[in-house]
C-alpha cells in the first residue's frame, strides 16, 4: 500500500509541476504584464519600478522558479484589480463551488444509482427502455440552456426559487439540479452496466442458493461489487464539475471559482487564472487518488498491485 501511495504522489507532483509550467506560460503570453499590473497613467519610470518589483526583468525560467517558490510559501500573488491576496479570494470562492458541487453530486447520485439499479434488475422491460431513453435525452441537453430554461420557468414564471445569488440554500437548488442532471446520464449508465455484470456473476446465484434474502444479497453482494466503477467515475465527474461549473455560475450569478475565473479572464487578471487552474488541477489529482484508495479498500484484489 505504501509503495502505491508513494508512486501516485510522485506522479501527482510531476503532473502539478507540468500544469504550473503551463499556467505560468499563460501568464507570460500576455506580453507586458507590468502594464496590466500598473494600470493607467503611470510614467515610464514607475513602469520600470514595477517591472523590477515583479521581477519581470530576469529570464523566464528564473521567474518561474521564483513563482514556484512563492506558491510553495502559499503566496499566490495579488489580484491585479482588487489588490487582494489571491489565496483569500481563492478559498472563499472555492468554498461556494465545493458547496454547489457537493449538492449536485448528492442529487446526481440520488437519481442515477437507483435508476441504474432498477433498469439493471428489470433488464429489457419497458422500465429499462424508459430509463435508457431518458438517459440518452439527458446526455444531449446543453447544461447552460437547461439552466436558462429552469431559471426562467421555476424562477420567473412560478417564482418558487431564487434565480440568482448564492445566499441561502434555496439559491443552490436550481444550479445544483442543473449540474446534477448533467451528471446523471453517465452515472446511470455505469451503474447499470456494473449492476448487470454483477447480477450475472455466479456468486449471486450461489448466494441465492444459500437461501439468503434478495435484499441481503443486493446489499452485501451485488452493490459493493457494482459500486467500484461508479466511484472512479464519480471522482472524474467531480473534478470536471468544479471546472465546468463556470457556465452555471454565470447563469445563476453564483460567486464560485468558475465565475471568479471567468471574471478575472475578462479582466485579464492572470495571477488569479493561474492559481485557479493550478488549484483545480490539484483537486482533480486528490480526488482521483481518493477514488483509487476507496477502490483499493473495497476490492482486496487491487490491494497488492
Amino acid at each position, binding site marked *: 500500500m505504501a509503495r502505491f501511495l508513494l508512486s501516485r504522489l510522485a506522479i501527482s507532483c510531476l503532473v502539478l509541476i507540468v500544469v504550473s509550467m503551463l499556467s505560468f506560460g499563460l501568464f507570460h503570453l500576455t506580453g507586458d504584464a507590468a502594464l496590466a499590473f500598473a494600470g493607467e497613467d503611470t510614467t515610464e519610470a514607475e513602469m520600470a519600478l514595477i517591472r523590477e518589483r515583479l521581477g519581470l526583468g530576469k529570464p523566464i525560467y528564473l521567474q518561474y522558479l521564483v513563482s514556484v517558490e512563492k506558491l510553495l510559501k502559499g503566496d499566490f500573488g495579488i489580484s491585479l484589480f482588487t489588490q487582494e491576496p489571491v489565496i483569500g479570494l481563492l478559498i472563499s470562492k472555492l468554498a461556494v463551488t465545493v458547496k454547489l458541487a457537493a449538492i449536485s453530486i448528492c442529487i446526481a447520485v440520488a437519481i442515477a444509482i437507483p435508476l441504474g439499479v432498477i433498469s439493471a434488475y428489470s433488464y*429489457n422491460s419497458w422500465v429499462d427502455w424508459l430509463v435508457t431513453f431518458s438517459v440518452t435525452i439527458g446526455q444531449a441537453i446543453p447544461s447552460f440552456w437547461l439552466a436558462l430554461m429552469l431559471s426562467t420557468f421555476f424562477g420567473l414564471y412560478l417564482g418558487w426559487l431564487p434565480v440568482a445569488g448564492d445566499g441561502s440554500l434555496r439559491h443552490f437548488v436550481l444550479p445544483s439540479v442543473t449540474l446534477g442532471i448533467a451528471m446523471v446520464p453517465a452515472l446511470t449508465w455505469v451503474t447499470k452496466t456494473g449492476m448487470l455484470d454483477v447480477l450475472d456473476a455466479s456468486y449471486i446465484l450461489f448466494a441465492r442458493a444459500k437461501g439468503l434474502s434478495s435484499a441481503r444479497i443486493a446489499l452485501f453482494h451485488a452493490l459493493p461489487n457494482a459500486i467500484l466503477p461508479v466511484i472512479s467515475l464519480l471522482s472524474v465527474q467531480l473534478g470536471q464539475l468544479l*471546472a465546468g461549473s463556470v457556465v452555471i455560475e454565470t447563469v445563476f450569478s453564483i460567486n464560485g471559482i468558475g465565475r471568479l475565473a471567468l471574471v478575472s479572464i475578462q479582466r485579464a487578471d492572470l495571477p488569479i487564472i493561474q492559481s485557479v487552474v493550478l488549484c483545480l488541477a490539484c483537486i482533480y489529482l486528490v480526488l482521483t487518488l481518493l477514488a483509487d484508495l476507496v477502490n483499493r479498500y473495497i476490492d482486496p484484489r487491487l490491494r497488492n498491485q
Partner: protein
Amino acid sequence: MRGVGNLSVDNHRDQEGKLSMWSKRKKFLFGLSIVVCFLLIAILAPWITLHDPYHQDLSSRLLLPFWTEHGSWEYPLGTDELGRDYFSRLVYGARVSIAVGFIVVAISAPIGLLLGIIGGYFGGRTDGVIMFIITTRLALPVVLVTLAIVSITGGSFVVAVLVLGFLFWDRFAIVTRSATQQLRNKQFVTAARAYGSSHAQILFTEIMPNVVNQILTIVSIEMAHAILVEAALSFLGLGVQPPTPSWGLMVAESRALSFFLPHLVTLPGLAIFFLVLGFNLLGDGLQSLNRR
C-alpha cells in the same frame, strides 16, 4: 467463465438477442437520419433561407414567430434584437456547429490515436509516459484553459476550434490504448511478431484496422461533446464572435429577453439538443453494433 456452468446456458439475457438487435439498429438509423438532415440543412442553407442571416433591419426588430397570431410568414421564426431573420440564423448556425464537431475531432482523433497506439502497443516505460501525458491533460480543467487561452488571443471561431481540438484527444487516447493492449495480447499479433515483421508493419496491418473501427464509434460521441462545449464557450462570449450565427451565441444574446420572448432562447437550445442527440444515437448505435 460466466454463470454457474451451463446453469446459465439458457440465461434470459441471451434470449433478448432479436429484440435488442432491432432496437440498436433502430437507434443507429434514427441517429443517422438526424445527423444527415442537419448536414443537408447546413449544406443547402443558402437555398432554404429567405433572408441573408447578416442583414439587419432595425425597424423590424423582435417580430414574433408565425405561430403567434401576429406572426408573419415573411419571417417564419421572427427576428432577433437587430432585426435579422431568426430562421436563417438558425440554419446558418448549423454550419458552425457541424464544422466545430468535424474539425475538433479531425484534430483530436489522430493525436489520441497516435498516443493510444504507442502507449498500448509498446507498454512498459513508454506506456508510463503516455499515461503521464494523459493524466496531465485530464488534470487540466478544459473549459478554464480554453477560456484563458481565448482571453489572450481574443475569442474567435478558429481559436476556439483549435484549442478544443488540441484538448479533446484524451478520450481517443484512452480507448485506443485499451483496444491496442487487448489486441497486442491476441495470438495473431504474437504470431506476426514471430514471422519477424517489424513493429511498424504490425501496427499498420494488424493493430490499426481493428482499433480504427473502435475509434469510429466514439468519433460521433466526441463530436457531440465538442459541439456542446463550443456552444457553452460562445454562450460565455469567448467562442464564435458576432456577427457569425452560432447557436450558443444566439442563446446568450437572447438571454435577456427569455422572459418576454421565450422562443428566442428555446429554439437554438433545441437545435443544439437535436444535433447532439443525433450524434450520440449514431455513436451508441455504432458502438453496440460493433460489439456484436
